[in-house]
């Protein structure tokens, strides 16, 4: 399915999306307010040769969306070069199914970039690859070194995990989220810049 201007314009603006959120708006706006943007990142987006349309697929219950959508929102606000329209995943399966993660998963958020003629430029899904990698390593280290996980296989469901191990896992994830926040934010911006730079450079060749 081709994304037309008409279909794109059926989406919500960023402000309209925030106004209709039924949960987590405070977290999203806090993330937006506390995001640290480097001058060179602002310059990159402000100096895009042409304004870009950005189709976003999200839901207000999604942790990755609450973390990453405000980054796009701030970049749009400070650059004036990103025209965002937001669609709810569960109400727009026709859009979602065009951007499946690894061809299978309905992961969100999705940021799909289009030029002024609605030609696709590229899309970004869910979270930075580096954060997924770091999370995997954190878990592997925890299972290997923490006595609470002795005899427990990685991937064991929390539903059958002993209380001590469950508590340690919850603590470890909370600490990981707090410790990697700034890295994750920087990685989102780096990956978006890389995606656009690569695609737009390809167009110029």
């Amino acid at each position, binding site marked *: 399915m081709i994304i037309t201007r008409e279909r794109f314009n059926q989406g919500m603006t960023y402000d309209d999306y925030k106004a209709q959120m039924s949960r987590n708006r405070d977290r999203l706006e806090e993330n937006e307010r506390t995001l640290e943007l480097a001058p060179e990142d602002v310059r990159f987006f402000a100096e895009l040769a042409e304004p870009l349309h950005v189709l976003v697929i999200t839901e207000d219950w999604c942790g990755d969306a609450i973390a990453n959508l405000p980054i796009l929102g701030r970049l749009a606000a400070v650059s004036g070069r990103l025209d965002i329209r937001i669609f709810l995943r569960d109400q727009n399966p026709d859009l979602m199914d065009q951007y499946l993660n690894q061809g299978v998963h309905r992961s969100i958020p999705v940021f799909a970039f289009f030029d002024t003629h609605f030609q696709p430029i590229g899309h970004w899904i869910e979270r930075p690859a580096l954060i997924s990698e770091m999370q995997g390593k954190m878990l592997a280290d925890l299972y290997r070194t923490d006595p609470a996980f002795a005899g427990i296989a990685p991937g064991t*469901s929390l*539903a059958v995990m002993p209380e001590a191990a469950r508590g340690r896992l919850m603590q470890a*994830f909370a600490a990981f989220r707090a410790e990697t926040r700034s890295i994750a934010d920087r990685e989102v911006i780096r990956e978006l810049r890389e995606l656009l730079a690569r695609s737009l450079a390809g167009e110029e060749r």
Partner: protein
Amino acid sequence: MEMESGARPPRVSIVYCAACGYEPQTIELASALMHTFTYDLGAIELIPWQDGAFDVAIDGELVHSMYRDGGFPAHDTIIQAVRQRLVR
């Protein structure tokens, strides 16, 4: 269904992805168990988690896993699994 005298009442643990908005399915399953078994359950434990989880264990035995089995469990499946433990 009456629990056999002296048996330890089953404990049901439901792990749900709080980041995914699975609260309604969690509450519905817990409610179905409450209405079916009234006083015969030792506990219904609701555990918020992430990564798309929806798992159900009875007395430490995993009877449904979204990763393993796919999707949400039918209430009847979980109710039947509890009944089997009540008559053991």
